């Protein structure tokens, strides 16, 4: 296999250049899809026959919940790359993904809680999904706090990589045990998101929102990464030149 591409991908400078070209297009696409998915879901779909209009929260809740888990897994992959190939860019990605993942995890929890009020009549239910989401939030806090507690950038990178790897091994165990615990304690209640079959007029806007949120994540990740690259590579000539060029243009 030709590793040149891989190495190129790992070069902060190359990434900075290429992402600068892609960013506007990705941003536009994300904005368009987000607007489409959410407006469609909010205004144009019929209400759910059981939950009424409150189910419209799904178009926010499901994408953010998906993303919250997916981002943690991506962080673990970035962590593995950091440990194995020591690619700086992977650690930067790990660092930049953490706050985004945390914010989505937080949003998923909040939307879940608000959704619970009309559905279950209470703001918080120790439902298996919400509980695992809460623990995922702790996992995110841990990664961010650990990075904050360590001074050396190299140590930060490798320590956080280990922590996310441990966390990602732990996630399925947590999900499984919380599910087990949940079935023991409160039988099967009305599930928030698992529908036997979703009507296509509800499914389409949901799929579009999910894709839109993934795109949005990519866009804000790139923005954060570009800043992080400038910060960490500030001693290089190309960063100084890029910053000056940005100032003039």
């Amino acid at each position, binding site marked *: 296999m030709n590793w*040149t591409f891989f*190495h*190129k991908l*790992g*070069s*902060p*400078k*190359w990434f900075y250049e290429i992402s600068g070209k892609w960013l506007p297009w990705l941003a536009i696409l994300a904005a368009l899809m987000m607007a489409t998915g959410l407006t469609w879901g909010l205004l144009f779909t019929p209400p759910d026959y059981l939950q009424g209009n409150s189910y419209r929260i799904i178009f926010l809740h499901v994408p953010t919940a998906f993303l919250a888990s997916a981002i943690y897994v991506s962080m673990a992959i970035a962590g593995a790359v*950091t440990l194995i*190939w*020591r*690619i*700086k*860019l992977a*650690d930067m990605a790990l660092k930049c993904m953490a706050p985004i993942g945390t914010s989505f995890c937080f949003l998923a929890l909040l939307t879940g809680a608000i959704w619970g009020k009309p559905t279950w009549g209470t703001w918080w239910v120790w439902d298996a999904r919400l509980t695992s989401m809460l623990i995922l939030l702790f996992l995110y806090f841990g990664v961010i706090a650990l990075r904050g507690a360590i001074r*050396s950038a*190299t140590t930060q*990178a*490798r320590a956080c990589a280990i922590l996310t790897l441990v966390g990602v091994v732990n996630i399925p165990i947590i999900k499984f045990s919380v599910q087990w615990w949940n079935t023991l304690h409160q039988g099967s209640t009305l599930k928030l998101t698992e529908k036997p079959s979703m009507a296509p007029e509800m499914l389409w806007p949901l799929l579009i929102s999910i894709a839109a949120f993934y795109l949005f994540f990519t866009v804000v990740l790139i923005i954060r990464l570009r800043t992080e690259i400038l910060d960490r*590579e500030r*001693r*290089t*000539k*190309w960063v100084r030149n890029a910053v000056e060029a940005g100032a003039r243009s």
Partner: protein
Amino acid sequence: MLEVAQLRCERDDRVLFSELSMKLSSGELLQIEGANGSGKTTLLRILAGLSGDFHGNIFWKEKKLSSMYADFRLSTFYFGHKPAVKGELTPVENIRWRASLRNEAPSEHSILDALEQVNLAGFEDVACGHLSAGQHRRVALADLSISASPLWILDEPFTAIDVYGVAWLESVLAKHVASGGMVIITSHQSLSEISGSVRKVKLDDFAGGSLEEDYDDEMDSGAFL
């Protein structure tokens, strides 16, 4: 035996040293000199394998150190700033666990003998917590004198010991070197007593160097941690 090529080390946005190359063979003592903060301890921690945060290469027995760690660690004795002596244990017990970590099991007799050498006779059964900091270091030095490791990496071993201790340690170093051992040592002490085989590295000669990395090649080290 131990070879260092083009070593470069940065800490806290400062280049401690760069382009440092040196070689250490059997029967040699390498004294590393430098002002405070010049990176002596950092260099020793790198050489001992405690720190991997550097650029350049280290070879052990003509092979890359990273592929030789098992053999290298079996051959190395590291004496750091902190003496690694437990206050709750007696000097004899301390030497025992330290030796077992190096895969050695010294006899009771040799331990007592070594403790006598460092003027700790009579303290064999006293918990080290009752001893002074200097005496802690002497416990570690007693361990050094009976270790079977050929390569000694010693960070300021002469601090906090008296004139008698200095003379004793010098004789131990001389004996080790004379019998084909290797020593890397940081110290302000003049080691003139040890005949012939002393070489000095002035770390200040390698200090500085530009921090500005300018890598345009995509496969350059700039992409890696």
